[in-house]
């Protein structure tokens, strides 16, 4: 038993209030503005729910609702199928390319989904490379990319890392004695996995799966690019941008998206409630790793490679596109060139530097906020502390478009002092939008990290004379460092390719980040090559950063693993 709520703490209270204020200003108010419209009678300006009645009377909207639900659920299923073997193999066996696999598993996240979709169309579309080959050799084609299938396909390949990362972290935190005692009691193989390992890794899995569900449910770019309109997010976007402010349906859908996502977040939180899974007690732990027998190794590699090929196909397609001259109704581009890269490096470097700056700042703010919130929620007894967590996590449920519109509406009449520019067009607003949008990722990572720290480690420090603050700096943060770093990387990588909110907020090209640049390049016949080149640079760029940070995490973990058991007492 651990009882971790000492009396009043002023520091956390102040931090908690500041965070609450930040969330209120940059999340609650702008979203509130949008929600307000949904409940306003467009003709009279009075408060009404008639717009919602209209929504549910409309068969198109009902169908969109069902489609969104179906696509999100199926994406979770497919993403789980992809993630589970990868996470299990790499945490369970002494597997050669663990770091490589986990890095590759993160790479999809650093590619804007709409770029991925372009490449996937070229490879898997009805006249893409794969189907051209199939048609040529066997006389049939597979509709990978048709309608909802295409969305599910692209989304699961894009978002499965959320499950992979969380599941891997949870698996590596399971004390091996849990597994050994199960083996001892006669359980092994799949049974052991299903009855012991999976339940213990459940919090991580559910957290990841909930993220995937919400991301897919709210995602706009992918269905739009695949021209699937009968889903909620595209309907909201199409209504808001083409019909405009006068039509409340877009806002109604936005509210429904937000509400539905909040609901699924709540469900996943409920599911995890009261389950103390901090099974690692003494700094060591993790599943027992064993060497693979030869045929097992072959099997594992076959599965892993199959998945990797699938996962890397958007990148591969993008790479081909970036080096190809003309790629049209053919298995491969007609010829190869480096001209697109020359174009990018002579005209578009500011996208890269802007992205570094924005995503770096946003990720930094995110881990600071995430660590502070995790501490306040899990280590203090401040009244309403849970609401900080809910509030920050609620950002997940806010589609980027909604946030972008909300920002424009809220901050356009607020001038930043001294530079005399509206806050809504100052580049810092992009950083804030990214911070808000990616905060949930950093937060989950920080919360997972703090939950893994035994409270006794902190009590020991306090007992030896360290104040709460000192304990945070010397014990909590260093022990959370792996989780914090992981949170930074996830936030950075996803912020670097954020498009839906930034597209609304970029006020001038010199302020535009990478994803916006790619989007812009991709709007012309001659621009696909340079756009793809920019995409490849983005992928490389964040991929290398991710790999480096992964090496750091591995190293710090290794330092804590028992290297050798020292001989017994004299």
């Amino acid at each position: 038993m651990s009882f971790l709520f000492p009396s009043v703490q002023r520091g956390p209270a102040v931090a908690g209030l500041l965070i609450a204020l930040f969330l209120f200003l940059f999340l609650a108010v702008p979203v509130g503005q949008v929600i307000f419209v949904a409940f306003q009678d467009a003709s009279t300006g009075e408060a009404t729910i008639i717009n919602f009645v209209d929504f549910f009377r409309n068969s198109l909207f009902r169908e969109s609702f069902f489609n969104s639900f179906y696509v999100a659920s199926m994406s979770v299923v497919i993403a789980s199928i992809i993630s589970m073997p990868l996470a299990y193999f790499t945490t369970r066996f002494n597997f050669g390319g663990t770091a490589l696999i986990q890095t590759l598993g993160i790479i999809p996240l650093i590619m804007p989904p709409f770029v991925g979709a372009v490449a996937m169309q070229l490879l898997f579309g009805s006249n893409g490379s794969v189907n051209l080959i199939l048609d040529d050799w066997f006389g049939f084609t597979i509709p990978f990319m048709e309608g909802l299938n295409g969305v599910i396909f692209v989304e699961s390949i894009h978002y499965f890392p959320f499950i992979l990362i969380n599941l891997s972290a949870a698996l590596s935190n399971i004390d091996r004695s849990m597994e050994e005692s199960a083996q001892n009691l006669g359980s092994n193989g799949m049974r052991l996995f299903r009855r012991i390992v999976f339940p213990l890794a459940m919090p991580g899995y559910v957290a990841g799966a909930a993220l995937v569900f919400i991301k897919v449910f709210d995602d706009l770019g992918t269905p739009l690019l695949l021209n699937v309109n009968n889903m909620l997010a595209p309907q909201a976007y199409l209504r808001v941008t083409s019909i405009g402010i006068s039509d409340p349906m877009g806002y109604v859908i936005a509210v429904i998206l937000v509400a539905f996502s909040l609901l699924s977040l709540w469900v996943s939180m409920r599911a995890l409630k009261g389950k103390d899974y901090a099974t690692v007690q003494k700094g060591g732990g993790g599943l027992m790793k064993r060497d693979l027998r030869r045929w097992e190794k072959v099997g594992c590699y076959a599965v892993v490679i199959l998945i990797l090929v699938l996962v890397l196909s958007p990148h591969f397609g993008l790479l081909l596109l970036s080096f190809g001259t003309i790629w049209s109704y053919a298995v491969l581009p007609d010829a190869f060139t480096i001209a697109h890269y020359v174009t990018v490096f002579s005209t578009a470097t500011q996208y890269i530097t802007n992205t570094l700056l924005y995503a770096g700042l946003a990720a930094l703010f995110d881990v600071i906020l995430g660590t502070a919130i995790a501490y306040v929620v899990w280590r203090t007894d401040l009244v309403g502390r849970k609401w900080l967590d809910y509030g920050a996590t609620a950002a997940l449920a806010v589609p980027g478009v909604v946030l972008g519109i909300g920002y424009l509406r809220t901050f356009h009449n607020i001038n930043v002092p001294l530079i005399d520019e509206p806050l809504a067009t100052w580049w810092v607003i992009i950083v804030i939008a990214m911070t808000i949008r990616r905060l949930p990722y950093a937060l989950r990572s920080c919360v997972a990290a703090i939950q893994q720290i035994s409270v006794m480690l902190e009590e020991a420090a306090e007992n030896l004379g360290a104040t709460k603050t000192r304990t945070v700096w010397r014990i909590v943060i260093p022990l959370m460092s792996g989780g914090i770093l992981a949170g930074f990387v996830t936030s950075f990588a996803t912020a670097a390719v954020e498009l839906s909110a930034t597209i609304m907020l970029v006020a001038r090209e010199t302020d535009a980040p990478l994803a916006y640049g790619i989007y812009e390049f991709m709007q012309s016949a001659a621009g696909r090559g340079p756009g793809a080149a920019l995409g490849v640079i983005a992928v490389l760029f964040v991929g290398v950063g991710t790999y480096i940070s992964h090496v750091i995490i591995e190293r710090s973990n290794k330092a804590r693993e028992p290297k050798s058991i020292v001989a017994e007492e004299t």
Partner: protein
Amino acid sequence: MIDNAHDSAGVVIEDLNLSFGDTHVLKGVDLVIKQGEFFAFLGPSGSGKSTLLRAIAGFGPTPTGRILIQGKDIADLPPWKRDVGMVFQSYALWPHMTVRKNVAFGLEERKISKHEIDERVDKALDMVGLLDLAERRPSQLSGGQQQRIALARTIVIEPKVLLLDEPLSNLDANLRIQMRRDIRELQQKLQLTTIFVTHDQEEANTTSDRMAVLDQGVIQQVGAPIDLYDNPANLFVAKFLGTANIIKGAVITEGSALVFRTDRGMDIPLNQGYTNGRSIVFRPQNVDVCATGTGASEAHAKLNGKVDHMEFLGSIIRYGVDVNGDVVLVDHAHKLGEAVFSVGDSVDLLVDRDSILVLAA
């Protein structure tokens, strides 16, 4: 309300009450622990002993009542200002720091010069005999070594009180005996007021000067181990501190003689002085077993029974003898060549009358 005895005491606890929500975990705890004393909190799990220890260190829900250390009320101080050193059951060594950094931590928090820190850390590590492991990480140490480092980390700050929360429970048997001696020795050397939480009465007996037996958040009895063993205040203490024969019945006066009549209708003569009580308690080693018909002195109460079972424990043989339906345990010192009774043998039991305690419940 502070009397002079309290001023000189190491730890004084007055009317301490503590609850988790609706559950009352500590109920009216009063306790005086002398300066330099090695004191044990003994009790089964859930008895509140760890909660009491943590309350002294300042962890857990805020209790009502007072906690004085060397005369100073610390109940309102945060943990870091209490100057009580605690060794955690799981040691709570920080995995991200070397052994040296772990031990130096408390001193660094006290803003002591680097030079002095090094000196004192070396001394503390030397004291626990692990100076050569200073640059290792905790995960590279064995359980016993981790235990010693946790101890060194705590004593290096020279706390006013040392709190040990089941410090031996994660060690193997041999190591445990070694460790408890080492801890005791260290405590003697430093003259450190020490509170030791354990559920193991042998551990408490062997190390502590005095101990408190807790059950359900209430202190049952306080005293030196032998006193408690010999004169338990109630059935719980009697049972918890070792094997005891407990027979239910009532005290009755038969003329001038005082007799305990068991519920099964057997009479056991008692010494004078008891008026009432519902049970008698006596320990197996205070009973002798002999062949039927052996003469008995006034000092013994004689009972007749049949051997129900026997266990050979090396230096003693433990017989279970069925006396009129109650099984009485008898520890008989085993000597070479002496006859051994078998199950079913009819035997006489001689209970040392002085050892028979009558308890209320």
